[in-house]
């Protein structure tokens, strides 16, 4: 059972690089875990820490302005690469609740929705504004499907209808699938 998600209000953290892949979000050597918890410490590990494990001061998440931010603004094609669900787990465990870009990779998007991390795709102009105004206080509202900028401009976004319904109501998809068992059994008989 997931918690319902309706509205996120937060300052933004900006990572403008395009094609940020899941190997950057969480490097492979941390995938040997057998639970979901605690991955936030390793989020962006190779960009965040030096060889000795000390935080690199110039990396955005190590700067005071990033503390408590729940919305990540990222360059185009965020989350490409491997199917590791550890990527949204790490982002959520760190404290992020939404990622905004102009393009979000398929598997990452689907993994995010299943864990309550909102993958939001906006138009170039909005994205450009968000990239050049780091730390802006914005609202991401899943009920109205809109991102509201501090300028008052509200920008619509789309989330796949069923995933949205599940997120708003805290329903998990496995429960829905389990209820289809008769239809599944019929399909199995037809194709035996």
């Amino acid at each position, binding site marked *: 059972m997931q918690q319902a998600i309706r509205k996120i209000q937060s300052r933004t953290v900006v990572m403008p690089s395009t094609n940020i892949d899941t*190997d950057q979000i969480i490097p492979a050597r941390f995938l040997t875990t057998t639970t979901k918890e605690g991955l936030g410490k390793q989020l962006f590990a190779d960009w965040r820490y030096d060889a000795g494990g000390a935080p690199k001061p110039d990396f955005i998440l190590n700067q005071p302005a990033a503390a408590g931010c729940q919305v990540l603004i990222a360059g185009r094609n965020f989350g490409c690469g491997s199917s590791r669900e550890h990527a949204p787990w790490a982002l959520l465990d760190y404290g992020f609740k939404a990622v905004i870009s102009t393009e979000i990779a398929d598997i990452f998007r689907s993994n995010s929705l299943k864990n309550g991390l909102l993958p939001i795709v906006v138009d170039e102009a909005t994205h450009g504004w968000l990239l050049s105004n780091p730390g802006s206080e914005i609202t991401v509202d899943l009920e109205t499907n809109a991102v509201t900028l501090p300028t008052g401009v509200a920008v619509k976004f789309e989330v796949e*209808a069923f995933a949205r319904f599940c997120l708003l109501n805290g329903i998990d998809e*496995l429960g829905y699938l389990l209820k289809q068992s008769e239809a599944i059994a019929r*399909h199995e008989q037809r194709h035996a």
Partner: protein
Amino acid sequence: MNASTHSQAAGPAAGKTLFEKVWEQHEVVPETVDTPAVLYIDLHLVHEVTSPQAFSLLRAEGLKVRRLDRTLATMDHSTPTDPDEVFGRIPIKVESAARQVRELEKNARDFGVELLGLDSDQRGIVHIIGPEQGATQPGKTIVCGDSHTATHGAFGALAFGIGTTEVGHVLATQCLLQRRPKTMAVEVGGRLPAGVTAKDLILAIIGKIGVGGGTGYVIEYRGSAIEALSMDERMTVCNMSIEAGARAGMVAPDATTFTYLKGRRMAPQGAEWDRAVARWQRLRTDPGARFDKVVPFDAHMIEPMITYGTNPGMVVPITGSVPVRDNDAVHAKALAYMGLSGGERLIGKPIQVVFVGSCTNGRLSDLQLAASVLQGRKVAKGVRALIVPGSQQIKREAEALGLAKIFTDAGAEWRESGCSMCLGMNGDLVDKGQYSVSTSNRNFEGRQGIGARTLLVSPATAAAAAITGRVTDPRDFLAPSPSVVNA
């Protein structure tokens, strides 16, 4: 062919694409505006990295695996390739990896899942053993918690990677909730020139459509150059579909496909085989079927390719130079990581590591190609060459054919099967700052180890680099006579 002319409006309904045929045969419940389709999964491949949390979910909910006969597990990602570790003569060095291996053993035992475990002679990289065992078949839906599941599309299956939550869904219900993706045809006309491989072809395709160019699409690779490919080569092409952002890649099954599958352990046998082939022959895109997007390509134009950056779309012909792109921060960041500058020629660049293996290029024909270059030659001083078969079966075949001896005589390391240096989680690592010429599929920052600099190539190009210790045009070694020195 029906030669009569119909008016547009009165004409027959447009034909279906290969993808549409497979999709529609697996819709348990079709999609609506409000709900995604419930899609039936014929084959679920499981490995140690993306499954533990899914089995935990089943335990927590008191659920069983719905179809054990459609579920097959193996170990590859965090599994070591050193025979002493694999066969338990010494403990697995990466301790967290050892835990994960034990966890899959326990989960497979508790839930009754067939596991090709550490000591199985059929174990291997998950995308290599599916086809090898004959479990991968045309028209099937195939999933695995791994993005390179697209590999199996080479057989005309609809195969794609899923996350761990979805692994749990498939274990419990044999189904997934899916929206129907769009379709893209990549039409490759002509023939690949001598010395140019399927790996070069897919790198060139990714270079053209870009690492996000396929997002939201299932690609069907078509055309004379694709039809001429062997199954191993088709798998190499489909494998990297995800590197263009596409979830799946497919090739229509044909005589090449059927010949490959016939007689394999899990393939249909006897009269069932004939019925299956009759069914499979219908799995072609109908004339007149529409794709959402069509990308034409000319195989004649393709050269051996090499990546220079930190994603597979940053790729050039091996005879080329690193592109110059002013005012491009992403390009600059990638080049800084790679220690390269715009305008620099790649041929002649000293390298330290060579890796031949992975689900992209760890099959027998890949090893044969590498061996044809390495035969009677030596790995250059100061170069570490690691050659890792994609499965234990390939390992045995390569040893029987004398390939392993060619490699070890040349001074390369020969290992047990696994993902190995494709990703830095099993102990096979490239050191910081080293250049690794690799037949794997991802050159992301840190993929082969912290600070590792990966240059993606074909097995021929990798083997040529091993000999010279530099980035080398493989045609210099494959050509019947040595080529004239470049002016």
